């Protein structure tokens, strides 16, 4: 019952007029930026993070949550009408959704995506509220060596789940870990890898890296592709409302998608795209008219969209309870907490219960707002899609540099933005995933802290790392994540289906 009391007081926080306003601004900004082609929720939060750091912590975290959910909604609009998924978890939505839009059924496709996201988001947020206190209770008993093992697990799953090969994923991860070394080591006061550049002593900002990789890198890839990347917007014809048959065909996929998405998202294994692929495959098998799949089957939009949003809420479980980001967006949200001097994790539930529960409660409100706002405003979002690309990308770069300058008005910071932007371009060009770089940068220093704490307690005996049963289990899971695909290959002679990239 404690959970409900805590959630109740959270609702009171979230219902304060100023916080409602923040949630509203968040979902509007999130949807607007999420609709823009090629921009997912990770970049949306990263772009807006520096702009908010003078605001009240609870309010801006509520706003980030709104942006996060809004970005998911916006992303599905872009993939249905434009066939350019803003993030990888919308790739599957684009498969059937864009076909539906081409067949003149864009309205119902958008509607089933929106309502399915609402259903999934609400159920998954309830799941988050119910599960979080239990995970916190368990996590309280974790020692530093267990935390270190947990982070190793996050590293391996993030690198194995993203990208086309484990080598590529690990390469991205280690780039992020190397960047995380830069700056003053807090325990010994020694400067590391800073080459006497004063600006490097504070380390690399997560937002600078994320904005550079996602915004600059993406812009460079698109401009380099030239005419290759031309896009066609499908106009929304006819009614945006679903008919009786659409409803009948949608509600089960919504629920199935939710129950696939939430548990997978909540595991420290991360990635919202795996459940979307699973849901798509499941719906294809269960569909009574399998011939429609590939030509715009509504089940193929309803299920994956629900799975996508449920996984997004699931990702908040490890983030809030363990301080463990398992997606690029979650990594940037963690940076958002850190910018207010807070570290998500079991202690945050004890020290700032109002903030945590207010945030969880605001997720329900953001979800409701999105449902009410999105369908009537679909015309507005479509117009955003029609912004000419020269202006769109010009504007993206203006905001990218604005955010960076706003956080730290230094030209060295802008120079880093440029260099990391080029890095992002090279990574994209050679199919290296982006998300592990961001996760590595933020989790690297945290995992080092836990490692050194564990070794300090044991007075330098490294065996302490392998003595707790929790840690051993986590290492076993990491090994499975890393070598699972190889094992799969040896056993079946086929390549394992590896997830896509980003977010």
């Amino acid at each position, binding site marked *: 019952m404690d959970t409900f009391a805590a959630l109740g007081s959270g609702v009171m926080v979230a219902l304060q007029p100023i916080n409602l306003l923040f949630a509203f601004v968040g979902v509007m900004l999130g949807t607007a930026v999420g609709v823009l082609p090629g921009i997912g929720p990770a970049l949306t939060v990263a772009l807006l993070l520096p702009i908010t750091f003078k605001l009240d912590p609870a309010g801006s975290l509520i706003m980030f949550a709104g942006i996060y959910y809004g970005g998911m909604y916006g992303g599905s609009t872009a993939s249905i009408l434009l066939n350019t998924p803003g993030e990888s978890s919308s790739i599957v939505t684009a498969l059937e959704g864009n076909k539906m839009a081409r067949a003149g059924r864009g309205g119902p496709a958008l509607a089933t995506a929106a309502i399915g996201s609402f259903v999934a988001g609400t159920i998954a947020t309830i799941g988050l509220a119910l599960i979080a206190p239990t995970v916190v209770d368990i996590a309280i008993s974790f020692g530093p060596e267990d935390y270190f093992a947990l982070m190793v697990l996050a590293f391996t799953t993030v690198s194995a789940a993203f990208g086309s090969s484990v080598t590529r994923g690990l390469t991205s991860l280690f780039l992020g870990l190397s960047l995380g070394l830069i700056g003053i080591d807090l325990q010994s006061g020694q400067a590391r890898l800073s080459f006497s550049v004063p600006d490097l002593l504070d380390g690399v900002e997560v937002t600078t890296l994320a904005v550079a990789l996602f915004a600059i890198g993406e812009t460079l890839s698109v*401009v380099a592709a030239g005419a290759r990347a031309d896009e066609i917007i499908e106009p929304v014809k006819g009614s945006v409302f679903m008919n009786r048959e659409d409803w009948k065909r949608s509600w089960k996929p919504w629920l199935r998608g939710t129950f696939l998405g939430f548990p997978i998202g909540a595991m420290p294994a991360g990635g919202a795209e795996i459940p979307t692929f699973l849901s798509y495959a499941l719906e294809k098998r269960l569909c009574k008219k399998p011939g429609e799949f590939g030509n715009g089957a509504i089940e193929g939009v309803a299920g994956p969209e629900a799975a996508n949003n449920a996984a997004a809420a699931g990702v908040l479980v490890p983030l809030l309870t363990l301080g463990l980001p398992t997606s690029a967006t979650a990594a940037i949200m963690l940076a958002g907490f850190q910018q207010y001097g807070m570290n998500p994790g079991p202690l945050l539930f004890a020290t700032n219960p109002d903030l945590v529960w207010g945030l969880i409660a605001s997720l329900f409100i953001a979800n409701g707002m999105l449902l009410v706002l999105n369908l009537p405003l679909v015309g507005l979002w479509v117009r955003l899609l029609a912004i000419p690309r020269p202006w769109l990308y*010009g504007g993206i770069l203006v905001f990218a540099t604005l955010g960076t300058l706003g956080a730290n008005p230094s030209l060295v910071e802008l120079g880093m933005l440029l260099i990391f932007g080029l890095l992002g371009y090279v990574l994209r060009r050679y199919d290296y995933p982006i998300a592990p770089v961001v996760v590595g940068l933020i989790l690297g220093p945290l995992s080092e802290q836990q490692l050194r704490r564990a070794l300090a307690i044991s007075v330098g005996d490294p065996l302490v790392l392998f003595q707790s049963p929790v840690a051993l289990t986590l290492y076993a899971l990491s090994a499975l994540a890393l070598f699972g695909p190889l094992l799969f290959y040896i056993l079946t002679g086929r390549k394992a289906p590896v997830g896509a990239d980003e977010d």
Partner: protein
Amino acid sequence: MSDSRPTSTAGPDKGRFVIAFALAILSLVVGWDAWRLSGINTYSAVGPGAFPAIISAGLALLALANAVEAVREGAQERPRDEIGPMAWVLGGLIGQIVLLAFGAGFAIATGWLFAATAKGFGRGPVWGHFLAGAVLCFVIYVVFAKGLQLALPAGPLERLI
């Protein structure tokens, strides 16, 4: 990295070879820094050099793994990238830094960035976009510097208000 190679046939993937080489260099740099730090006496069980040493070793292994994959997968055909438009965007970003370094202020420097990016995506004229971008960025400056108290760099235009 932008030359169009013959279809995936003979020879290793040159691009990924270069990446493997870069990783090896990064591993050396991180490893050298770890070695330097290990010489400093600190009063803790694990010094500041331990974690960098692990990462350096990981980078070295990954350099090897990337090189092996480059050979095994062979040269890949990648679509040709257009240098001209990329040069405009990069010129926009570098130009913005240079203009800011000379004290041109946020509006002028970022106006140039906007114009150069638009040009890279094939929309001119540069002058018109520069003027429109500078006006837009001036408005942004007013909103953000006055409204949200962000310290954006000021130049001659910004000092007028």
